């Protein structure tokens, strides 16, 4: 038996971190003392100092500024691809669970097909085929992240649709569309909220991974992933070059996981299947 407000602290710490990170990303132009693209040949690979709190990279660019601008990319990829996979997953899972039968079979087998590919491999392949761009990364991560949500929603709907209040809603004249949107969706929202929260760090990690491989968002646009890629030759000489982007990836993932776990405990749910 968990304590009554179990997860409350986790949730609060997580959500505060998320708010701080989002604020840093949104206010990047105000907070960054330097232009993230401005090179400075005199001051390359400077260790952290007053002028450059996180040091400078191999072209003399301010790492603090680049990390802040990178946060914009990472969080945009994380949240937008999460929204996309939740939307697709909700639609397919709801249709499969509510209508059942052949449609259910088709949708769930398709879901299985998407699910058997390791998501990183799928994303790398798709990103490699097309021109790398921000929207492409979002689309590809969002477009491969939905099977978990679809399964979850289908399970919830299967459980809910035989409930008597759904039948009584039909009895009062609600049509399929209204039942799905107005009666089923809010009741299935809890577990999906948790899964959605937990899918953000997964997307952030995937984006960082893809960019690290050089297939994602291309330099000079700063992202945490391609900063790590740039840093890997200088690991022995300039620890700060890789440390700060890495720290922010860690903080982001940590924050979203704390929030998700906190939510899960507060909503009294058992473990939720995560994507991939």
């Amino acid at each position: 038996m968990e304590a009554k407000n179990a997860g409350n602290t986790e949730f609060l710490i997580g959500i505060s971190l998320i708010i701080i990170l989002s604020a840093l990303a949104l206010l990047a132009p105000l907070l960054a003392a330097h232009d993230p693209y401005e090179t400075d040949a005199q001051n390359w690979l400077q260790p952290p100092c007053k002028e450059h709190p996180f040091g400078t990279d191999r072209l003399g660019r301010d790492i603090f500024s680049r990390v802040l601008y990178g946060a914009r990319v990472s969080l945009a990829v994380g949240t937008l691809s999460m929204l996309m996979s939740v939307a697709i997953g909700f639609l397919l899972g709801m249709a499969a669970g509510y209508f059942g039968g052949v449609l259910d079979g088709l949708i769930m087998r398709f879901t299985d097909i998407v699910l058997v590919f390791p998501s990183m491999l799928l994303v790398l392949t798709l990103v490699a085929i097309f021109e790398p761009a921000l929207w492409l990364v979002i689309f590809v991560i969002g477009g491969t992240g939905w099977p978990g949500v679809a399964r979850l929603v289908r399970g919830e709907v299967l459980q809910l649709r035989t409930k008597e209040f759904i039948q009584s809603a039909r009895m009062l004249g609600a049509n399929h569309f209204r039942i799905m949107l107005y009666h089923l969706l809010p009741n299935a929202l809890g577990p999906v909220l948790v899964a959605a929260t937990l899918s953000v760090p997964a997307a952030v990690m995937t984006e960082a991974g893809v960019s690290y491989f050089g297939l994602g968002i291309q330099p000079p646009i700063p992202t945490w992933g391609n900063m790590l890629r740039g840093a890997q030759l200088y690991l022995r000489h300039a620890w700060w070059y890789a440390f700060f982007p890495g720290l922010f990836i860690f903080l982001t993932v940590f924050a979203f996981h704390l929030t998700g776990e906190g939510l899960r405990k507060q909503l009294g749910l058992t473990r939720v299947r995560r994507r991939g």
Partner: protein
Amino acid sequence: MLAVKDLEITFSEKNSIFKAVRKVSFSVQAGEILGIVGESGSGKSMTALALTGLLPPEAKVCGSMSFAGKTMHFEDNSQWQGLRGSKIGIVFQDPAACLNPLKTVGKQVAEPLILHKGLTPKEAEVETIRLFSALGIEPAVQRIHHYPHQLSGGQQQRVMLAAAIACKPMLLIADEPTTALDVTVQAQILRLLHEYVHNHSAALLLISHDLGVIAQLADEVLVMCGGTIVEKGSVYQIMQKPLHPYTKLLLASLPRLDAPLKLPLVANEGLTAEGGCVFAARCPHYRAICLEKEPPTKLLAEGRQTACHIL
């Protein structure tokens, strides 16, 4: 106003067929209360669901039905959509399970008004408040903002009733409306049902296994067993002079204050065989013919009917 003829509901699995309802025919007039009694599994609720087109898709429904002068087709779901909640209202057994836990009760009662009568949410709220005070859900103005769990069982059932009668349906189906409630609340709900039928000259189909409830409210009574109608008559005839052995035993099964508890009627277990009388296996008077031939429905004087070989 409502006439059902030869209603049959069949569930078929890979190699077995189960007939939940067989050849059931009846009719209800406006202002009339028709009671349907029978034990669990007798097909009462299935009949009610068929009349609203709400049976699960795997159920196969045969027969014909006319409602308010229109022939209804059991296969055509779109035909029912407009009727449910506007012309036909239904109250189920367990109000706690029938209310959406995440919506205020006011919103749930307003739903049919918005869907069928095209009222704006504001108008629907006014109408909901009026319905709530009419049904004794007080204080109505505050109650509409409450969630189902904040209400007592009796209040929840009143809310369900309010939603069912919001659009003034001509036919109200009450499927075990008071089974989940205690006796004092039960009487209040029954009175409300009776008032609605009386004031709007609507028809009420009252489904219950509780003979007391049926005796209080119904005009006509159908006794169902194993998916068939075994006896039909006025409430007085059925209660005072039951003819069919099933009805007799059902009445004798009522616990009494002045006699020791006895169980003359064994609960229905397993499926009844095809071809014979549905009650033959449990009937104290059965003869060989009961196992071989389905008893024909005999029409008797004063609109009574019964289906039994030995009568």
